[in-house]
């Protein structure tokens, strides 16, 4: 469902650009509002969420899908943890559909999907590994590859047909589209701004995204 937000960037407590193909890691506290903005359009944003107090509790794609009885995320969708607790709720969305099944590209899966010699390319899983190795918020929580699970792909379009087919379709996002969610607990956010060049998930041209956080509504 398409819904806009009336939050003003000037009031945000965090306003950062994540460059094309780069990882980003940060905190969003309970009640704060987190916006991901697709600056140039059709940019897949691979995103994982962890309970900041106990990262063993993390976003679960299958629990989220099963609880809402639907594969796609949009306004009103609640992102659930494996413990069955709401982690974030999507409260604004000008794109309309976000993916839960496509996961992250990886050097290893690229060898399967495209060609054995595609291994050395940048990938989301390598971005996740890089962020976990360098971000204080990951090191202090002893987060590793073990904590990488099926992620959300904001702005990505992976339609499933009634016959069970699955394809990476051209994006439905566009420059300036955004998705906004309210944290229902303190969460660690781990993002790879997808560097994939082998399929249309980034329109073959990965681009920057803008990340904003607002404090809880008074």
């Amino acid at each position, binding site marked *: 469902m398409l819904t806009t937000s009336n939050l003003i960037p000037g009031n945000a407590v965090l306003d950062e650009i994540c460059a094309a193909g780069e990882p980003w890691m940060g905190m969003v506290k309970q009640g704060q509002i987190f916006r991901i903005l697709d600056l140039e359009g059709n940019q897949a944003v691979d995103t994982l969420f962890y309970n900041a107090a106990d990262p063993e509790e993390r976003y679960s794609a*299958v*629990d989220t*899908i*099963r609880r809402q009885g639907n*594969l796609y995320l949009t306004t009103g969708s609640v992102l659930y943890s494996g413990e069955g607790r709401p982690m974030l709720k999507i409260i604004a969305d000008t794109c309309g559909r976000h993916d839960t099944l496509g996961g992250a590209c990886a050097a*290893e*899966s690229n060898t399967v999907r495209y060609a054995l010699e595609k291994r050395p390319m940048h990938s989301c899983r390598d971005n996740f590994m890089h962020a976990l190795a360098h971000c204080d918020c990951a090191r202090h929580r002893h987060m*590793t590859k073990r904590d990488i699970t099926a992620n959300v792909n904001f702005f990505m379009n992976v339609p*499933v047909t*009634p016959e069970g087919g699955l394809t990476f379709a051209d994006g439905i996002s566009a420059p300036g589209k955004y998705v906004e969610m309210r944290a229902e607990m303190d969460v660690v956010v781990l993002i790879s701004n997808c560097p994939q060049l082998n399929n249309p998930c980034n329109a073959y041209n990965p681009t920057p995204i803008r990340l904003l956080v607002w404090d809880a509504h008074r």
Partner: protein
Amino acid sequence: MNNILWEETVPGGNHWSGVLRRDTALRLTDLEGGANVAALFYNREEKLERYNMPDTLKAQHTAFLTAGNVCYSDMGRVLCSIIGDSVGWHDTLSGVSDAALVAEKYGTVNFQTHRNDMVRSGRDGLLIELGKWGLGKRDLVANVNFFSKVTADADGNLHFQPRHSKAGDTVELRFDMDVLVVLSTAPHPLDPVSQYKPAAVKLTAWHAGTAAVDDVCRNACPQNQRGFINTERFYAGSGRRSC
């Protein structure tokens, strides 16, 4: 079948784990109809390598599994291949029940009153088995639900197909790596049946040999051909036969 290694029955609502070696196969038989087997797969040599739902679906451009499909690890290797299937559709999207869902649907049942007629969630069954191998919640990822069919309509809404599997239906997995297999036979989380009566499942292991050059799963798509090359490289030089 004359090369059976072992056979075992897992009651409905129960759970099981064990290692299936490369070149062995496992047949799951739905003994009563309407069974569900939640399954997870780990490389027993390096258990950080595990079944990856998105990679499995993306590589094969499918949202469900059937004969000819393989289960990919997150490292681009083939953990197991579906070499036989009388059911036609196995769910990959819906995860498992948890204790709250089971209590809400079936009421609270404990050992004091019901002894081994256990009413245990899929999640708790998987966690118990994972714990036996030093694994836990961090290792619990999106699972396969063998014998269950869940479709999605054009808007993404899920539809559970009741009693999709019939008594006697089977699915056969050939293990292409040494794999830790973790199973729960609790009901599918979207199964609307209000009584807790999950079906028992028979496990039959046999010596199947590794995937031949003309193997159906290997040649189902170029992606699988490359997945098998990655898998064979992992075992190269181990003195173990590869095709």
